[in-house]
Structure formats: C-alpha cells, structure tokens
C-alpha cells in the first residue's frame, strides 16, 4: 500500500490547553479514513494544521514523503490536496458554475490574466465536475440562494477540480438531512473508488462513519485514543466510555482549569 499522508507527533497548544497532543497516523492511497471524537477533541485543529491554516506547536506532516508542515494553504493545495470546510466557504457573489471555474482558473495559473471573458473559461470542464456531484442542473443559479446541502456538494466539486490525491473533509455532512448525508458520503466513496483519491474526514454521524470509512481514528481531548476498523472501534471499551457516557470529557484534575 502506498502511503499518501503521514502525520508525526502533531501538537497544538494554546497556552496551557493542549488542543492537539502528539497525534500520529498515516493515510494510504484510495483509503477513506475517518477521524471522530466529541466536540472539542481537536479534529478541526488537526485539519487546520494539515492544510496550513494553523501552525503546529510541534510535529510534522508529510505528503508523499515531502514535509509540508507550516506551508501556506495555497502551496499545499498546489501539491494536490483539496479540502472542504466545516462551515461552507463559497463565493457568494458568483453563480454555481463560476465557483468551480475560479478553482480551474487558479489550477491553470490564470488568476493574473486580464483577458476577458472569464465566464467562458473552463466552463465545460466545470460543468463536468458539477455533474459528478449531481449539481449540473443548478449550474447557473446564484450561489447565495443555494440550500445548505447543495453548498456542501458545490464545495466538493470545487475540491475535486485540481484532481487531488488527497481530500480533507471537515464534517462534510454537518447540517444536512439524514438521507442527504448518506447520499453525499456514498458519492464521496464512489469518487474515491473511481479516481483513487484518499480521503480523511471528520464526522459526527456514526451511520456515515461506520457505513463508509475503511478505517477510523478516535480523538479525545487532543489525543488519539484508538484506531482500527469499524468493528474494532465499535467494540473498544474506552471509545464506548467516551461516547456513550460513564466517561468524562475532562479529567477531574483538569476541571478546575477548564471551568476557570
């Protein structure tokens, strides 16, 4: 199995708070890896460090063996990493297809060109990506009037534009109806299969996680507490404790600190 992403001893400390503490894992080609954990476990912080939005306190991130720690998001993107955001980020003043076209313009190094007309540039290609996520019939709608689930799908189309090897999806189905969630994850799984893309995603919906992830990591209070296949995780006593009660999110000794 080819390794795509390797994370080694990643830490992010905000003062005394260890948001992410010594997290290490690898992600292989065409693998669908889920990162789960309660709120505040450090999932988004991990993501933001891998994608360059946040500088880690220590530790490293390797993409195909190359150290990409502390690189700017736009540099990491050029190396073939796409991402979708927990809170969708799209260009609200443009149409759906134009959102995708901008990504293609950037991919083809056309952003500094002042030759009109940009709305014709890469349109067919962009429509193709919209078709992949089932949005082609909404191509010319204003992005600002889209439903939330459609925005999520649009983000996925944008992230696929530069044919990435790796896709980082931060809560791809948050805020969607249960049916839509399954559909979006099925779509993602199909894309992974077709194109050999590796996906790392965080998720709160356990149906989505156990139904689609090849491998699951569990994060709690900044630390990786378990890793394995769906059934291994399901039967892990500690994970059960963290998720299903009995376990406290914070250790007693830390309570005073957290409450302060």
């Amino acid at each position: 199995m080819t390794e795509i992403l390797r994370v080694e001893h990643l830490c992010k400390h905000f003062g005394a708070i260890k948001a992410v503490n010594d997290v290490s894992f690898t992600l292989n080609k065409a693998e669908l890896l889920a990162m789960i954990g309660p709120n505040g476990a450090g999932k988004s912080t991990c993501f933001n460090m891998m994608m360059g939005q946040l500088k880690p306190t220590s530790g490293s991130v390797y993409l195909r063996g190359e150290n990409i720690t502390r690189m700017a998001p736009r540099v990491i993107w050029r190396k073939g990493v796409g991402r979708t955001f927990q809170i969708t980020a799209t260009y609200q003043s443009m149409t759906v297809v134009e959102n995708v076209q901008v990504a293609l313009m950037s991919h083809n190094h056309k952003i500094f060109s002042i030759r009109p007309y940009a709305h014709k540039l890469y349109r067919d290609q962009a429509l193709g990506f919209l078709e992949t996520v089932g949005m082609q019939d909404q191509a010319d709608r204003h992005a600002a009037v889209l439903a939330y689930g459609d925005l999520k799908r649009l983000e996925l189309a944008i992230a696929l534009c530069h044919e990435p090897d790796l896709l980082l999806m931060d809560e791809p189905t948050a805020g969607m109806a249960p049916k839509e969630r399954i559909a979006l994850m099925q779509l993602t799984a199909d894309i992974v299969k077709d194109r050999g893309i590796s996906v790392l995603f965080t998720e709160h919906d356990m149906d989505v996680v156990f139904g689609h992830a090849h491998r699951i990591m569990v994060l709690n209070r900044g630390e990786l507490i378990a890793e394995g296949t769906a059934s291994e995780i399901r039967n892990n006593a500690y994970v059960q404790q963290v998720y299903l009660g009995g376990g406290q999110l914070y250790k007693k000794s830390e309570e005073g600190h957290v409450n302060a």
Partner: protein
Amino acid sequence: MGLFIAQLLTGLANAGALFMVASGLSLIFGVTRIVNFAHGSFYMLGAFIGYSLLQVLPGMVGFWVAMLLAAIAVGVIGVIVELLVLRPIYRAPELFQLVATFGVILVIQDLALMIWGAEDMLGPRAPGLKGIVRIMGEPVPTYDIALIVITPFVALALWYLITKTRVGILVRAATQDREMVSALGVNQSWLFTGVFFLGAALAGLGGAIQLPKGGADLLMDFNILASIFVVVVIGGMGSLPGAYLAAVLISVLNVFGVTYIPQSTLVLMFVVMAVVLMIKPYGLFGREEVAGEHGQVGEVERPFKPAGLNARLIVAAFLLVLALVPLYGSAFSMVLITDIVIFCLFAASLHFLLGIGGLVSFGHAAFFGGGAYVAALIVTYSDTPMEFALMLAPIGAAMAAVIIGWLCIRLTGVYFAMLTMAFAQLLWSLVYQWGEFTGGDDGLLNIWPSDWLNDTTVYYFLTLIIGVGGILLLRHAAHSPFGYGLRAARDSARQAEAMGIHTKRVQWVAFTFAGAMAGVAGGLFVFSKGSIFPSELEIARSFDALIVVFLGGVKTLSGGVVGGAVLETIKDFLTRFEYWRMTLGLLIIGVVILAPDGIVGSLRKASERLGITKRPEGEV
C-alpha cells in the same frame, strides 16, 4: 529645560479636546459600525454653540455651564442626525452610512455659515483662568493647566461608564455582537441613539473647551477629522486608554514639531501612525478585526455577465452623442464633459477596488493627485513634452500604489481604510509643506498641453478617448480571470487561499492597477486645468470618489461611472448658488435614504418590480 516642560504641558492641554472628540468617534464606530465623517462637524458645532452661549452666560460658573450646555446641545443634534438620517439606512450595505454622514457635513457647514457667518471667532478667555503660571521661568496659561487636570477626569468618568455600569456593559456587548445583544431583548435602536448622543456630546465638549485656545471657524470640521481618525487608529478602535494615550502622543509631538521641525508638522502625525500600524497593525490597544466577523450587512452582490447587445448599442449611441458634442455644443459644455469624464474614470478606478475587490480605500486621491503632480513636476522641471508626461502620470501613481499597497494590504476593513487615508495625507502634507519643490499651497501653474492639443475640442477628444478607454479597461478587468480572483478573495479569502490563490497578492495588484488608472485621470486633469494644487490630494477629494461609488451603487458594475457622472453634473449646476453645500448635502441624504442600493442598484430593482427586466429566481 523650562521650555521643554512648558511645551510638554501645552501638548498635554491640547490633547484634551482631541481625546474627547476621538473617543466619541471611537464609541460610535464601536457600537454602530458607522464611520462618522460628520464627527468633525459636531466638534465645530460645539465650538460655535459654546461661543454663542458664552455671550449670554457671564462669569466663571457661566463659563463651565456654557461648556456643558454646548455638549448637551451637540448631543441632541447628534440624536437628530441619528434619528432622521441614519436610522432609515442601518440595513444598507456596510459603510454605506458614511455617505449620509458626508451629506451631514455639507449641511452643517452651510448652517454654520448662515448662523454664525464666515468670519473666524476668537474664543473668550475663561473667567478666573486668564492668567499664566511660570514654570521654571516659562509662561504656561492657567487654562492649559485646568485642561490637563480636567481631561483625565472626563476620561475616568467615561471609563467608569463603559466598564462599570449596566449601560456600559450593553455598549461593550453591542461592540462585540450587535445581533446577540438585540436577541437578548435590548432595544438596539435606542442603544444606538444613546451612543450617538454620548459620542456627539463628547465632540461638542471638545469643541467648546478648546474655545479659549483656538476659537471657532468654518474649517474646523475637516481640520480635526484627520487628527481624530489618526488618534482612534493609533490607540486602537474602541479603546479609551488607547485614545487618550494617542491623543497625548499626537498633541505633544505636534507642539515639539512646531518648535524643532516646523516644515514637517503635518507629516509628523501620519508618519507616527504609519509606524505604529506597521508594528502593531491594530493600534496600541486594539483588537484584531476579523473580516466579516460582524456579519455581512445587506444582500450579497449578484453575479454579473458582460453587457448584452442591447446595452452595448445604448452605450455606443451615448458615446456617439458625446463624440458629436463639438458639432452642436458650446465650449463650456465640452469643458464640463471633460471634467465629468475625468472624474468618472477616477471614480471607476476606486469602484474597481471597492466594489470588485471589497477594499475600502479612504485615500484614493493619493493616486489621482499623485499622478497629476508627477506630470506637473516633470513638465515644470524638465521641459518634458506633454505626451510623455501624460504617460508618466499613471506610472508614477502606480509606483506610489505599489509601495502604499504593500504597506496597507496586510490590514483589512476599517484599519485598511484608515491606513490608506494616512498615506494619502502623508503625500498631501509632503506636497503642501515642501513648498520650494512643489509650490506648496500656491500649486504649480502653466502646465498646458502641447500645441496640437491646446484646443478645447482636441483636448475634449483626447479626454474622451483615454477616459472612456480607461473605464472600459477597468470593466474588462472585472470580467477577466483577475476580476474573478479579486471577487473570490473578497467573498471568501479562506476558500480562495485553500484553492491556491494568493489573495494578498491579487489585492496588491488590484490596488496598483486602480492607482494607475486614477493616475491616468490625474494626468488628464492637470493638463485640462493648466495647474494643480494640493487640494487634489486631500481627504475631501478621496471622499468625493468614495461618495460617488456608494451613491452610484457599490454592488453594481457601473455604479462608479454613473454616480460620478450624476454627482459631477449636479455639483456643476449647484455651485452657482450661495448655499449649494446644503442643497447637495440634503440631496445626498435624500438619495441615500430613498435608494439604499445606490442609483444603479435601485433603478435595477425598480425596473424588476415594474416588470421591465426579469428578476433572477431566488433574488430579492
């Protein structure tokens, strides 16, 4: 040593009024997010009203009662302005309200002229505090000592109000999250009104207490505006201790500047501000402004496409009418249209930056006046042919924009706006005070075009070709991948960076491009007038362009050009009358209230409502 201390004390005394006015501005901005351009006018009103009250209130008690009454009166005026002008437009796009406050400046200017006349008024000295104290042999006015003592008490009272009272808690909460405060059941509109009262009253108090030192005149409003913006920005938006410290810093520096380096007094303040912002981008005590954290106000820009055939034909026909003006129009109409086209290009260049790029620059005149001065200086000193000088204008402006842009682009929102204004003022004060090179206040004269162009008709065509060409180039750029990249950086810098777009670099290039186009307009301007004065670089000029872009419609593609043409035409017509400022001010306020989407935006909506054009599905 004695002189040193005396000057220090003078500086501290001057800081009093500055602090009061600046803290008022800071309060109003913090809570309402309105950049109140009219704050200088409140200060001026405080001085005039204080002056009139002092005529009827004698004695020491009378003096201080007059100060307080002046503050209250200005506070009430602030409330009237808030209720009548601002309350109807809180839902308008962010910063749109500043256009209305600009209208208020004009109205107050003429009102003050009507009531108090054009003559400067010398403030009476404060009863009981007329003497001087000798400190190490140097005379210091007693009134200065009084001010030094009073100011910290005002600051302390304000600090107590903001940090210790329930009202203060609401004000601070509203500064952080207006929506949440109103969701918790606080009547937001009355909170806004209250803050306006307090802010305006502080400005009025500042104007009144400086009477014995400076008197009252009609130029006070604009004169203090730059200083208070500088104080607020150096101190950090919304920080009272910051405002006090910055006011002291600026005032003391000014006093020492006058003594030791008199030729650079105006520059000094802006140099300090630029240095502070480069080290601490959000001021001494400011908090980082995260773009969009206060939420997008108003609706999102609509997608746009290049104009269809019909629109193009209409524009072509209109241009043909303009091209034929020499056949049927008078020389005067050609001069007027020349002015309008130049102004439209200037406005269009700012619109590109502001509308497409979301970069609100308060100092765009730097590049208009800068380009004009580059051309004028080259002609004056090197006998360069006019054609060449005209080409150098945009190049000079672009070079200035590269440097200023590099320094400003790191900041966002209102801090970006303030820093651009500071650099524009820096350029202005350089030109103004470096008299032996730039001609200073007297300007540069006899900058005429080459012989073959030195004819109204020929120059008219030159302006039409270059001006319209420039506007079309800006429009083309908006439709280009670069325009899309710029909009992407404005809509979501996060997503743009995550898809490989270097947003800051895109914005920097856009800033330079817009600067160069303003330089083109500046070059055309100087040769059409034959002269250039520092006023083309000043704040008022930057504001002109800003007002026009908002008035035309910042969220439409042609807003800048249409706004520019309309306002310049109206202005030309109105300036023949005595009280044209008031008329123009009222007109601006009227448009702002009746057409909060700007002229173009509101026309578009009206035509959709009437069914002339189709409204895209889902839009409001």
